[in-house]
Each structure stands twice: as C-alpha cells, then as structure tokens.
C-alpha cells in the first residue's frame, strides 16, 4: 500500500530541549564535530487505495492542522511515493 511521509520540525527560532540534550550527550562522548542537534517527527500515512488529488489535499490539511501546530512547528516536507 502506498505510504505518504510527512515531516515536522520545531520552528528554527525556538529552543529544542530534546535536541539540546542529545547535543550535550554527543559532546560528552567526545563527538565535538557536531555543533547542534534538532529533533523532529516523521509520520508515515498508509493509504488504502490510490493517492488521488483529494487524498493529497487531505494530507496537506491534516499535516497543517493536526500533525503539526503552526505556533511551534513547521511542516518541512510531504513526500509522496513515486508514481508507478
């Protein structure tokens, strides 16, 4: 079944405490070449049937309205499976 991938990241200007904690752990491990880590979310939506224009419109809507909160996050990518 086709899968649509939606990727959401915390807004660039906001502090990302999770990413900061991971960056701190990397630094403690001596991995000093990494100056920052940011953590986002990846959603994989499995579609029952074909990906029609209506499905695409729906995905864009739920990506903006449910999967992300525009106050704190950005939808950075919506990836559709390649057409067969």
């Amino acid at each position, binding site marked *: 079944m086709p899968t649509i991938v939606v990727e959401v990241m*915390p807004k660039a200007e*906001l*502090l990302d*405490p*999770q990413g*900061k*904690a991971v960056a701190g752990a990397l630094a403690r491990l001596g991995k000093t070449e990494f100056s920052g880590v940011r953590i986002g979310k990846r959603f994989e939506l499995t579609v029952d049937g074909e990906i029609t224009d209506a499905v695409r419109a729906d995905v864009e809507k739920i990506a903006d309205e*449910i*999967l992300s*909160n525009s*106050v*704190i*996050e950005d939808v950075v990518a919506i990836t559709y499976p390649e057409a067969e």
Partner: protein
Amino acid sequence: MRIGVITFPGSLDERDAQRAIRIAGAEPVALWHGEHDLHGVDALVLPGGFSYGDYLRAGAIASVSPIMAEVIDAANAGMPVLGICNGFQMLTEAHLLPGGLIRNDHGLFIRRDQALRVENTDTAWSRGFELNDEIVIPLKNGEGGFIASEDELDRLEGEGRVVFRYLGVNPNGSLRDIAGITNERGNVVGLMPHPEHAVEPGFGPDTSRAMRSGTDGLTLFTSAIQALQAV
C-alpha cells in the same frame, strides 16, 4: 451553579478539580470526552494530566475529542472555561487561546510551589483577586514553556490578557514569564500551575502561617461562581 469537569483518557486531576468546585460552593459535574453533551453545566474545567500520554503534542489529541466541539461552541458563546496545565495545552491546541506550550527549557519535569502575580482581575476566573495580588499554587509539568510570536506576545501584553505571571526564577522558560492568559472576552483562561491543589487547609502549599495551609487557588473557582451569579 453547576461546573463541569471533563475527563479525557490520561486526565489525572479531575477529582481534585471536582473537589475544588465543591469547596468553592458549586456542584461539580463529571463529563466524558467521548460524548457530545455538556449536561447543561454553567462553566467548564479542563483538568490537568497527560491525556493520550502527551502523544503527538501535549493536549493535541484531546483537543479534537468529540466533546471539544461543544466546548468550543460554549466558549465562543461566553461560558467560563478554565484549562489547567494539560487543559491549558488543549485550549491552545483548540485555538481558544493563542500561543503554545513546549518542553521546559531545562528539559526536566518540575514540581514546586509557585509564586504568581495576578495581573488581570476582569476575567471569569480571576475577578475575586485584587490586581497585583501575589499568590502561591503548585506547579508540576514537563511541557510548560509558553511561547508565541513577538507580535502575539505584544498583543497579549497590550490588551492586558496576561492573567498570571511567574514570580522569581522562571520555572520553565515561558516567554515573558507568562503563566496564564485569557481570551479577548475574558471567559476562557488557561494556566500551567494547579489552583485545584491549593483549596483546602492541610493540603495546599506551605505559607508563612503554617505548613500546607495555602488556599490561594480557591479564588479561581469562587471567581467563576461570582461571574455566573453576576450574569
């Protein structure tokens, strides 16, 4: 006077909220997230907890619960609605209040008795306070950092919609030390600290008078009762 408290999957503090309402002098009504029915209540409390395990974002899944359709209609019609902690997160996710709540800047869960300044006494949930009253109620959260755009923050400040502000060391990175806000109409209030845990001598925060004697939270609930009586 009947005040509804909505239980969502993962709510923790609905019984404390019900008890606070009873002590304040109103009748608490238990409501369920899966119904489309407010059972004719006069006001609403969205309690604290971890609805849906904070999955997706804190309060996000609860904000699209069946009952939230009725909550949004009632709030827009002027019904007093209070969101505490996870309830505040739901109100922002439901766009009844602006801004959002993110993980505490220090990355840790925090629990402490929190001093607040009351900066708006015109809301349904704060009219019983005096302006600039300093109160102490418990704070306990992992995702309590209030954020909004600079424009939104300026608007909130300019319109006097910051109801409660943290005093002392900022506990969670909230911008401009904001602990609680209201909507334009003043009927919807959300705050991260827990007034329902400071309503009964013996079970509240410590005060200079005696251990656990703090009852500052009770005024939020008596305020709502006053607001309803004034209608």
